[in-house]
């Protein structure tokens, strides 16, 4: 019993081929069988069986199916559920119980989604391999000697290995799209401000966005529509209407203009990865789209701007973890400042400390103009270049990651090589635009994600192009052994 899409699950529920409790039991059994090797989950919620029984009762009582009834959901452990532990994979929050529920999680549950458990991540979402978790390393189901990508590695693996039907993650510089690329699933980051960040433990507040992992573009659209829209608890959410995403029988890319930005190819990009993207461009050409080469002259500078802005915001956001109000607290020394310093030293891992130090540097007296403010201006320049390119084309097609999944331990010694994994994903975060990674093919038997980007608020074009691709290819149906 394995269902790959929400509509498969709904057809089975309607035909009474399966109950919600059975769907949840199958998910729990699958986790029990596979997670010793994969390490995707930090915690499983036993109470979910009661929640499933409540759904079955609703259905038996004649209630119509809600949008996500029967849908098993894994949640990255940096999103809060009221009264339940949420750790951000950090020792500083190891026993912390949330006092709110994240709006995105709440909206999914209101539509019937069943939260099976909380998934592993790089500590506070800082990393590209899920190796920075304080608790465990997550492995790639395509080859357990390889990383699953990160920081939402646990949520990507949960879907890729059929532990849950869908999952959610957060994407600050590629943390949904890059693990989606490494594990052959769809990962989507909406426009900044589209989905509420309330209840998401902040990494970099001007960049963070929540989004779904699914097998199909259609399911990503369904989850996106449930989560999206204004929230009084997040002042950066937009009041814009969330356009309904519908495809009809066939998603149409006739006359769509698709740009290949030359800065996303060439140096540092594995030629086998680039070939998968060029093959995808040919698929689109056959479907009637126009392929154009375009340029984003400062796209390659996005990574440096990101690695100033993100640590700066992080050093400020993580100041709240001080050992006073919640979380790990060390009180061996004398005086308030020693509580702060010792608690933070004992509670934070190496990468978190490194970024807090980089952020403190770029915000310190004498360096703010040269580093932080200049990075904000380069971000503005990149934003402007994307605006101009979207006058010429409807969407951009690029690789998601410069490479396929790399071996565990291969990049942990040198932080800069790990940062390079974000090269092609950070531009979308800096420009606030929506972007998706979807299965595009394979290189040396490992999945390769192709990335689609569109202008701010134009999620619809990405979904249309993604759906059109999946209607004529079967890469998204390939599963690890």
């Amino acid at each position, binding site marked *: 019993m394995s269902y790959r899409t929400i509509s498969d699950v709904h057809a089975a529920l309607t035909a009474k081929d399966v109950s919600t409790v059975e769907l949840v039991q199958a998910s729990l059994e699958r986790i029990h069988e596979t997670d010793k090797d994969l390490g995707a989950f930090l915690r499983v919620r036993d109470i979910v069986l009661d929640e499933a029984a409540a759904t079955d009762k609703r259905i038996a009582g004649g209630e119509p199916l809600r949008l996500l009834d029967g849908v098993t959901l894994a949640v990255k452990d940096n999103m809060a559920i009221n*009264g339940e532990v949420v750790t951000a994979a950090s020792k500083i929050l190891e026993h*912390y*119980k949330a*006092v709110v529920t994240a709006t995105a999680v709440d909206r999914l549950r209101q539509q019937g989604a069943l939260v099976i458990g909380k998934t592993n991540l790089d500590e506070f979402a800082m990393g590209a391999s899920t190796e920075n978790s304080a608790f465990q390393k997550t492995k790639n189901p395509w080859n357990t000697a390889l990383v699953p990508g990160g920081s939402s590695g646990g949520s990507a693996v949960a879907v890729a290995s059929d532990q849950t039907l869908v999952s959610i993650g957060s994407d600050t510089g590629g943390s949904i799209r890059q693990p989606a690329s490494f594990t052959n699933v769809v990962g989507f980051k909406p426009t900044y*401000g589209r989905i509420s960040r309330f209840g998401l433990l902040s990494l970099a507040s001007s960049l963070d966005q929540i989004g779904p992992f699914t097998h199909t573009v259609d399911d990503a659209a369904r989850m996106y529509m449930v989560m999206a829209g*204004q929230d*009084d608890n997040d*002042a*950066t*959410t*937009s*009041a814009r209407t969330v356009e309904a995403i519908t495809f009809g029988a066939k998603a149409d890319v006739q006359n769509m203009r698709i740009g290949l930005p030359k800065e996303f190819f060439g140096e540092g990009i594995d030629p086998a990865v680039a070939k998968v993207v060029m093959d995808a461009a040919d698929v689109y050409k056959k479907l009637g789209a126009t392929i154009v080469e375009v340029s984003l002259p*400062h796209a390659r*500078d996005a990574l*440096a*701007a990101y*690695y*100033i802005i993100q640590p700066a915001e992080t050093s400020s956001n993580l100041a709240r973890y001080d*050992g*006073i*109000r*919640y*979380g790990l*607290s060390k*009180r061996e020394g*004398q*005086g*308030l*400042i*020693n*509580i702060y*310093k*010792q608690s*933070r*030293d004992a509670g*934070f891992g*190496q990468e978190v*400390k*490194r970024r*807090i*130090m*980089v952020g*403190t*540097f*770029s915000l*310190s007296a004498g360096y703010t103009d*040269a*580093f932080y403010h*200049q*990075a*904000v*201006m*380069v971000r*503005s*320049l990149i934003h*402007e270049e994307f605006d101009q390119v979207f006058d010429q084309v409807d969407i951009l097609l690029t690789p998601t990651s410069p490479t396929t999944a790399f071996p565990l331990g291969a990049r942990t010694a040198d*932080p*800069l090589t790990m*940062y390079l994994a974000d090269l092609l994903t950070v531009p979308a975060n800096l420009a*606030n635009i929506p972007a998706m990674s979807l299965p595009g093919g394979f290189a040396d038997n490992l999945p390769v994600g192709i990335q689609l980007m569109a202008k701010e608020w134009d999620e619809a074009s990405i979904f249309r192009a993604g759906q059109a691709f999946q209607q004529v290819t079967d890469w998204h149906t390939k599963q690890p052994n």
Partner: protein
Amino acid sequence: MEITTQDILKLADLARLELTPDEVASLTTQLPKIVDYVSHLQAIDATIVPEVTTPTENLRADIAVPATNTEAILAQAPERAERLWRVDAVFS
């Protein structure tokens, strides 16, 4: 760019991190590499575009409402005294 052990200790103090000698040593080698990598941005003339700021189009009215989860919040305190957090004296 040269970053000395003294600079690292000063930054750690600003960041309220008590680093071990090993951590100080590794950050003294790593931080200059990261700073050098990001320094090339300084050569870019980005003054030609307006600064993009994070939009906040959704401000609520500033009205106080009673908190309903005070006990759940205080229950997380490492040390508390009834409805207060207990800390060491700020001035000794």
